[in-house]
């Protein structure tokens, strides 16, 4: 007979499952890596030349934002996985296993974040190198920042997956959410250059907070601290709670035989 595993063990095994399924789909990795490299070495180089007349090093600014945008985009995939699992009935199996619903949501959010981190760690090291930043402690700190962001984004993505039942509507909402979180933030352009109406929203964005924190580590002349950290932690807490609540609602909400 088997015994009840510990919470930490369950989290590890849930993360391991998400990693196993990820490794089996290398096309996602190739696709996102190519996108990142093209954006960095074509788009950022080109815009950097245009912006150099303003005395602004756009390449350095963008390179950090590109990593943050990429992990944001990858973290959204976990919601797509969960939506598919719900459609295929796989969620019933997973929820019959010996762990609670909340631990399941936390495990999947962390799984999404770890997947994202594995993707973007080489990108982060490349960006640190291009930006002339070589402190291992700083690089580890920056990875921690984007890991926290990715956990929150995974929670948001899981919340959407549990909130929306229709596949087409879900696809549209995920695309819009991804667009909004990246574009309405200071990841790829400075807050000051954004339309005024979006600036207050973008200043509260966790993507802005993560981008600013990493820039403060890598680049001279940038600062960030407690305010950005609090926003990131609040973001994770809110969407972990909502993800758990909506998972419960989905399960109890009306599938029967």
């Amino acid at each position, binding site marked *: 007979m088997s015994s009840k595993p510990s919470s930490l063990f369950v989290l590890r095994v849930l993360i391991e499952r998400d990693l196993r399924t990820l490794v*089996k789909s290398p096309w996602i990795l190739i696709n996102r890596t190519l996108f990142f490299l093209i954006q960095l070495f074509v788009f950022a180089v080109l815009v950097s030349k245009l912006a150099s007349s303003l005395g602004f090093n756009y390449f350095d600014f963008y390179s950090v934002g590109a990593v943050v945008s990429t992990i944001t985009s990858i973290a959204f995939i976990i919601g797509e996985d969960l939506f598919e699992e719900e459609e295929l009935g796989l969620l019933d199996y997973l929820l019959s296993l010996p762990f609670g619903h909340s631990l399941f949501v936390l495990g999947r959010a962390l799984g999404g974040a770890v997947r994202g981190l594995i993707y973007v760690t080489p990108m982060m090291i490349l960006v640190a190198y291009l930006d002339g930043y070589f402190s291992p402690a700083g690089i580890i700190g920056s990875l921690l920042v984007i890991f926290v962001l990715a956990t929150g984004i995974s929670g948001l993505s899981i919340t959407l997956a549990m909130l929306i039942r229709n596949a087409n509507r879900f696809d549209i909402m995920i695309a819009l959410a991804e667009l909004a979180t990246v574009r309405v933030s200071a990841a790829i352009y400075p807050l000051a250059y954004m339309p005024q109406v979006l600036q207050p929203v973008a200043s509260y964005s966790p993507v802005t907070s993560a981008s600013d924190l990493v820039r403060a580590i890598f680049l001279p002349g940038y600062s960030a601290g407690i305010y950005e950290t609090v926003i990131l932690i609040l973001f994770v807490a809110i969407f972990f709670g909502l993800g758990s609540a909506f998972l419960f609602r989905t399960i109890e909400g009306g599938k029967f035989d």
Partner: protein
Amino acid sequence: MIEFKDVTKTFKSFDAVKGITCQIMDKEIFGLLGPNGAGKTTLIMTMATVYRPTKGEVIVEGHSATGEPDKVKSLIGISFQDPKYDRILTAREILDWHAKVTGLDKAVREKRIDEVLAKFGLTSEARKRTWTLSGGTKKKIENAKVFVQRPKIAVFDEPTAYLDVPSRLMVWDMIDELRDEGSTVLLATNMMDEADRMSDRVGIMSRGEMVQVGEPEGLKGTLKGRDVIELKLERVIPELPGEVSKVEEVKEAVFEGDVLKIVLSNGRGLLPYLINVVTAKGGKVNSVNLKEPTLEDVFLYYTGMELS
């Protein structure tokens, strides 16, 4: 022991399970029968703590499914009707992950996985992605999850669907072995021969309710008086139904074409006597058909439905 105490599960305004009270004993194979939509899966998922009962309580081995869900889940292993696993993974990866998350250490799970794969003849296919495998093989892998886990409470939902005859027999043997090792087995099935052969007791569900619980033979006994003798005669003799109906055990006798259909109790015992009655009235019997109640008859009688 598993105890369902007045369990109701309502989804919005629909009662999927209504006031079910029953007990499943230790080391028992309990067949759960019911047409699609009867509430079998909802009852299983409520026991497995995936759903919370709207009313009532499920107690598994002394633990409340609502109050101590993690303890209850750690006792249960479910083989679902449709295989539920990541089809991008191989059979070995699926079984390894399932065994790991249900608490088996590496040495034990590797040994059990090897054993179960070998029994199912899947050793050579164990490293192929499961989406490439046949429906029967996918079903074997779904069953294999529970055979590797060997839980205290093993649930099988249509365990032999999609399987060929040798595989069905093997699964039945493996379920028997699981019970012999100490597991309690809940077997949800629409296959009456499977339920009859495997179950110590069966519960029949219809429209969310448990309409009958008992041993298969006992339930067949509840349909006593429902044996049917069909005598195909050379010609119709109009007075024969009235004559046959004089026998006390006969409930009904009618001609359907040239077949005299007699509903009665103890059909086997009375058959020679009834043939004598027919012959004495000048009837010539060309063929005889005796039908005694089967579990399928029991099922149809208590559900008032057709099997789907």
